[in-house]
């Protein structure tokens, strides 16, 4: 079991931690911002690069490198946007950061904004997180009152205004350019890239979009140094700790903070989460939010981090681990996942708009007892025709589960088709 005191975040995840007072006293709050505002921009970015902090939203792009893409000079205002849309099914880490340690995020954003030269920031928060939006706003108000936001922050001469913007409940607005369109008041549809947001993002200005957990890690990096943070991670390229949201059929579901690259999936499930519910056999694990290709029970001796997961054909994504035990209908599970992506497809590009619904329809038919032998190959081909051919990553997110479920649990699908119903039923 992990020692709760060693964690950056989780030890503070309770109601008491929320007020500014706690943040200042127990977490040496805003000392990092004070330090950063006295540092050169290049030094901050170089510390973040050293820290091996990689984006916690799902893509895992090195944060320092991303910040480095922002042009020093820009005719248009620059923006720092926090992606708090947290809409990947199975993911629930950012929510706790925002509701328990909102000042950590605010401080991280002050530092990030200073580093990229932005004076306006937005927290784009998932529409369903009404309570978190309110709590964030309260914390922002507190920060303004105490001179941590607004004009001349901590006497440094640096100005930064921060606004909470609530989404309207669309998964696609977690995609960074979809988010920016939505922020601008347009339809939440991803944009063609290039240009990338660092060149032309919000309102046409150079923009950095970072995940909540990513930005919340920044104050630790500034205070204790990039090297210190990098060493928290157990793999060469991954620094810091990671928040794993474990849900599904485990005895102790919940949020776990562990060193990046420090545990295998088996350790996470059996040691930290106390094993499978009712001590049944493990059937499958979806390791990184519902878009991550599924793993079988034989594949869980893998270190839960970006490269090891990629090597076995899945992804760490947002580190939302969903555990599925024997007796669960994988056809139904896949249909539900596919229904989600079909429902959330924005509809602009052809393969995703048409293909996701097609896959859902086929799966619906199979689950309904009207499957045909050729449906499985058709499913694989449709998924393949979506994968990598869409305008944004939603298509891949929809195709990955279909391909992996059908390939790895083909016998279950075939039993469904031949028997005309679920063999478990």
């Amino acid at each position, binding site marked *: 079991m992990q020692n709760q005191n060693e964690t950056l975040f989780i030890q503070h995840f309770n109601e008491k931690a929320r007020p500014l007072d706690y943040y200042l006293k127990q977490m040496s709050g805003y000392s990092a911002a004070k330090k950063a505002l006295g540092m050169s921009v290049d030094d901050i970015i170089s510390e973040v690069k050293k820290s091996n902090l990689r984006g916690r939203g799902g893509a895992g792009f090195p944060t320092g490198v991303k910040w480095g893409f922002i042009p020093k000079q820009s005719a248009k205002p620059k923006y720092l946007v926090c992606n708090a849309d947290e809409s990947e099914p199975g993911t629930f880490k950012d929510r706790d950061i925002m509701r328990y340690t909102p000042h950590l995020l605010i401080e991280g954003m002050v530092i990030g904004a200073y580093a990229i030269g932005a004076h306006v920031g937005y927290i784009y928060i998932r529409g369903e997180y009404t309570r978190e939006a309110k709590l964030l706003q309260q914390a922002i108000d507190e920060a303004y009152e105490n001179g941590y936001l607004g004009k001349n922050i901590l006497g440094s001469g640096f100005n930064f205004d921060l606004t909470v913007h609530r989404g309207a409940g*669309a998964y*696609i607005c977690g995609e960074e350019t979809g988010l920016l369109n939505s922020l601008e008041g347009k*339809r939440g549809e991803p944009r*063609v890239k290039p240009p990338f947001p660092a060149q032309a993002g919000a309102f046409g200005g150079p923009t950095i979009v970072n995940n909540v957990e990513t930005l919340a890690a920044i104050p630790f990096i500034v205070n204790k140094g990039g090297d210190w943070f990098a060493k928290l991670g157990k793999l060469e390229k991954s620094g810091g700790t990671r928040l794993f949201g474990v849900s599904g059929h485990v005895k102790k579901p919940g949020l776990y903070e562990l060193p990046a690259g420090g545990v295998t999936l088996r350790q996470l499930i059996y040691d930290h989460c106390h094993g499978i519910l009712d001590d049944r056999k493990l059937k499958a694990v979806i390791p990184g939010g519902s878009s991550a290709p599924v793993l079988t029970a034989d594949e869980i001796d893998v270190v839960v981090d970006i490269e090891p997961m990629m090597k076995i054909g899945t992804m760490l994504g947002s580190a939302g681990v969903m555990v599925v035990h024997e007796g669960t209908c994988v056809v139904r599970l896949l249909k539900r996942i596919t229904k989600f992506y*079909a*429902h*959330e*497809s*924005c*509809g*602009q*590009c*052809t*393969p995703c*708009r*048409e*293909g*996701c*619904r*097609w896959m859902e*329809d*086929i799966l619906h*038919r199979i689950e309904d007892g009207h499957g045909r032998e050729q449906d499985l190959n*058709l499913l694989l081909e449709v998924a393949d*025709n979506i994968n*990598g*051919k*869409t*305008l944004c990553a939603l298509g891949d997110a929809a195709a990955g589960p279909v391909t992996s479920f059908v390939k790895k649990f083909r016998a279950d699908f075939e039993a469904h088709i031949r028997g005309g119903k679920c063999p478990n039923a």
Partner: protein
Amino acid sequence: MPKCIIDGREVEFTPGKNIIEVAKEVGISIPFFCYHPGLSVVAQCRMCAVEIEKMPKLQTACSTVPTEGMVIKTKSDRVLQAQKATMEFLLINHPLDCPICDKAGECDLQDNSFGFGDAYSRYTEERRTYMDLDMGPVIKKNMNRCIHCTRCIRFGDEIAGIREMVAVQRGNNTEITTSDGRALETDYAGNYADICPTGSLTLHDFRFKKRVWFLTKTATVCEGCSRGCNIDLHHDAGVIQRCTPRENLAINKYWICDEGRFNFHYVNDESRITDPVLVEAGHLNSVEWASGLDQARKLMAGKKALVLLGSDLTQEEGKLLKEFFPKHLPNAQVFHFGTPGVSDSKSDADADKILKRKSKTANLHGMESLGFKPFEKAPAGCEVALVIRGGRAVVPALNGLRAIGIGVFQKEHAKDFSVILPGASFAEKDGTVVNFAGHEQKVARAITPPGQSKLLPEVLMMWINQKAVGAA
């Protein structure tokens, strides 16, 4: 110029042009739906996917510009497979009823399906359906045929300057429609039908009137205003069926306004006078050309004549008349006329931010350059008027002067005239017009003048050559 390699060929390119355009210049065509050279690039349809060396994923040719040494493959197995997949996706919800669709024969979806799709469908689920929508007097929408390319949305936004087409709902249920289902407001609405790559947006005016493969296209110039937009007249058996814009980046880009688009209707209209007529007590009596001319000359004989020339005439007609009058009607006072309130080129200006000009005739600037003066009011002592026009110039009040008309007249004009000699419209003659910016452009004859109508040179020849009856 930098070079890239497309399908094994070394191709020079202008930096900034996308792969579709660069490939097109050397005769390599890449299929697409959502791309339109006059609109912003959205890379939504994915049809133009190409393979680029060193890039793991296929790239959309519309949104990618070549760089020096880039190796592009437009016909590799991966590309062909992706094109086939995109066609399959686009067709699973599209009705496969081309024979009853008005777009058939000029449909991008049909053409690309034939060129790049599979002959068989694997789709057995229920197709998506929508309600039709009447989008005002110009456009009818059949959403079932829509492939969500969003060209119409972008046209409204970026060209017409009005965001009236929108996408509602999302994902598979996305519907392209007018906001709140209202009628279209733009007076450039016809372009929506031109840019629609399927039979989703069609013209009320044209749909189901004629199969497009029966139509002959004649490239000509619109006579609707002094812009001189380039157009194609589509006609069959002497009847014009529709008018579409023809690309000219210097003048009208890819567009025309609705006024210009539907202007041709008078050409084949029933109310057009196509026989020489004598007007007596409000009655139109058709006569032979000889008697019409006789009567006209009789009226003109020895009188001081006011001659009004429409600025809808061509340069050639203008020059001919310039020589004709001093010789054959020396007493004539000659002026040009066209648009009320826009008597000369100085009062001509842009009428909107898109294409329309204030002068509603095509050759105001040309007629002026020939030395004709604008008509303001009849000089004292004029006893008779001769009006020569095409189909556009608005005949001014003649204050009771007995009048003779040569050219295109409708029955409603007859009350102001004693004799009308039918002439040719812009669609029935060759010639030149000069637009507001001084561009000389060719008007081309698409159809034969209807009925007894004759071209102006022929009318003038007859005027001169027939035995004069009390000639001036």
